[in-house]
């Protein structure tokens, strides 16, 4: 499981001011986990490497977006527990 310096958990849609704030705080060793309406960002080009960006499966599924994402970017709640436990720090935006 990936071990990030800071894991950013983002639950805001791309129009939200805090969405932009979050993206501007992501460092080179950080990871991004999209949850809730944050998963809508998956439909848009993201300025973060795909290897460091995940989206929560139930939220993708609810919004009809599961097929838009490659399988190694899809995170379950179990993955979310691992990601948050392993990261040095976590910021919830």
């Amino acid at each position, binding site marked *: 499981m990936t071990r990030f*310096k800071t894991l950013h958990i983002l639950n805001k849609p791309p129009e939200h*001011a805090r969405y932009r704030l979050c993206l501007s*705080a992501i460092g080179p060793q950080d990871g991004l986990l999209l949850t809730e309406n944050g998963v809508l960002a998956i439909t848009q080009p993201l300025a973060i490497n795909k290897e460091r960006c995940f989206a929560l499966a139930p939220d993708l599924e609810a919004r009809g977006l599961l097929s838009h994402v490659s399988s190694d970017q899809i995170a379950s709640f179990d993955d979310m527990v691992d990601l948050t436990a392993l990261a040095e720090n976590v910021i919830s935006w």
Partner: protein
Amino acid sequence: MSTLIIIDQPPYGSWEGREALDMAFSLAAFDQPVSLLFCGAGVNWLRKGQDATTIQQKSVERNLAAAPVFGVEALLADNKACDHYGLTEEDLLDPVSITDFGPELTSRFDHVAFAG
């Protein structure tokens, strides 16, 4: 353990910033190092000359002035947001320092949190 509390909501329109201030004050009460960062529309907390009497609220300017007394270590304002809202150093409350928001700043803290 050092904490950064971020206020990105403007004052008066919601209680979120006040509740963020309470978080900072509680950490300070227990001698935990804490700083406050204002960014986005939150920088409007920092403008001098507020008077909230007619909207029947307490002045966040006056509330915030208690932060150094209680031991909040630093009041920081994001450079870009200040520019965006036309705030220069002279417009800001005295103990505020302007800084650049980004991973270098947030990674200086063990714990970064919003109130809502």
